[in-house]
């Protein structure tokens, strides 16, 4: 068909290129110009420098992030909480600060990623979202134990074992995971620290919202006890509280207080509300970081589940 097609190759190439250029301008360049997509905010985590209270951020954190990338953790774990009810469980806890502002309790926004390089949003949830894992699991010991053998903390996990990594790399990874939280939300407001020996604590330290609660179950209810036993097996409680449920101490190799409690003693000493509170909110160490006890309210156990476990422990208290 003559000359029209002679020059067509160049023209065709130019046409294709221009179309793509249009798409690039619209979907890459324009977002780049939107300032609020860059700005870090009080919520976005930092991996070096200082915390708000003047404490330095450990150099292990930045290193931990590199290890997270190197080992490909981001292939199975996302770090974005979508604007959906499904994802509400992964949000940072909502907290009202002293000045009346509410922080947390929302999906992730661009400002939560600040200058993350690379941004590790992730594309698969073979495992749970980790954007705010530092709130749900604020314990370094828990993370290290989980990394060494995921099935020790969660029997049905399919996560690989990282026992082959040297101890300081595991430490770095754990430090990194702990900073994955909404930095505008003070972490101490979540879990309360009842003292080095939890059996000495009394109901005085119970927070308001836990004081008036009533255990809906009775210790004579065999079905509830059976349910609790199933939960204990599924959640892997005995890994820390001992196969005989009598807890662990420094002699057993547990690092630092608070030590996993002897359930028989706990059942005898504490009230239903106290046990329910510890199971729900977890515990902290003296330095304010998490002990190994997760906040089960945020980690998959419903109110009924936790009351069932409370009932079980109270029942154990009557068994000696």
């Amino acid at each position: 068909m003559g000359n029209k097609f002679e020059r067509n190759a160049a023209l065709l190439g130019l046409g294709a290129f221009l179309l793509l250029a249009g798409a690039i301008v619209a979907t890459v360049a324009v977002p780049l110009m939107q300032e609020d997509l860059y700005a870090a905010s009080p919520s976005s985590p930092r991996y070096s420098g200082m915390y708000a209270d003047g404490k330095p951020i450990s150099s292990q954190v930045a290193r931990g992030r590199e290890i997270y990338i190197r080992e490909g953790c981001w292939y199975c774990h996302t770090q974005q909480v979508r604007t959906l009810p499904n994802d509400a469980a992964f949000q940072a806890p909502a907290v009202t600060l002293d000045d009346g502002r509410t922080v947390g309790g929302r999906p992730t926004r661009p400002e939560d990623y600040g200058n993350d390089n690379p941004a590790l949003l992730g594309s698969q949830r073979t495992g749970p979202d980790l954007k705010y894992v530092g709130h749900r699991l604020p314990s370094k010991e828990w993370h290290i134990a989980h990394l060494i053998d995921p099935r020790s903390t969660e029997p049905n996990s399919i996560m690989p074992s990282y026992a082959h990594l040297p101890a300081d790399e595991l430490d770095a990874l754990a430090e990194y995971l702990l900073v994955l939280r909404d930095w505008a939300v003070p972490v101490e407001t979540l879990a309360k620290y009842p003292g080095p020996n939890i059996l000495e604590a009394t109901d005085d330290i119970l927070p308001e919202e836990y004081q008036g609660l009533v255990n809906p179950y009775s210790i004579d209810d065999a079905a509830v006890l059976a349910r609790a036993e199933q939960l204990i097996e599924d959640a892997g409680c005995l890994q820390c509280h001992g196969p005989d449920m009598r807890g662990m101490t420094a002699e057993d190799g547990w690092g630092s207080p608070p030590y996993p409690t002897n359930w028989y003693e706990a059942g005898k000493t504490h009230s239903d509300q106290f046990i329910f509170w510890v199971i729900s909110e977890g515990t902290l160490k003296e330095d304010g970081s998490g002990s190994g006890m997760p906040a089960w309210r945020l980690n998959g156990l419903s109110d009924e589940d936790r009351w069932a476990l409370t009932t079980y422990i109270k029942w154990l208290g009557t068994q000696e």
Partner: protein
Amino acid sequence: MKWARSRGTALLTALLALLLLPGRAAASHLSGGESDLMGIYGGISLVLGFAGLLGILGLVPARWRWRGYRWGRWLLAAGLLVLIGGGFHAATVGTVEQRAGDEAFGRLATQQIVGTLAVFFTFWGAVYYLARKSGVLNMGESVKYSVLRNGDPPEWTAYRVERPGEHRLMWVPVAAMGILAVFFTAGVLIAILRLQPGARL
């Protein structure tokens, strides 16, 4: 042509006005907004539009070609109507999740999708118009044959005469596509409908 031009201009101006009406930027990161009704309307509109396009271009099998010519432009128009009407419907159905202070959100969200599609169709309309005018669309049917006359020997299947009844094999991939399409659609619908209404988007 004159009346078409003045109406076209009016439509274009209306669309531009809709696009340029200021919306609230705070809404830009939030979800909710137009329900996926627009997706359904968009899909239907595309099917109608595509069928209409095939008709106008005479690309239907010979037996139905006259029907294609006759109804093509009406199918295209129907597609466009479904799209615009659907846009209005989706806007009135309202947002799923209203955030405080975002009264403009529903309109903003619909604006965005109408704007996108306006750009899309304006561009393609212009391209098609220019292509028609330059005659390029009518050129080059002969290009199709160039691959048959190059030096590469064709496969033996090129000479294999079709035996009676074998043309029915074409329904196998059609059936496969249909079954899979139904399978995926059903799966998604079942999953969505099993959610509580509050959990659905």
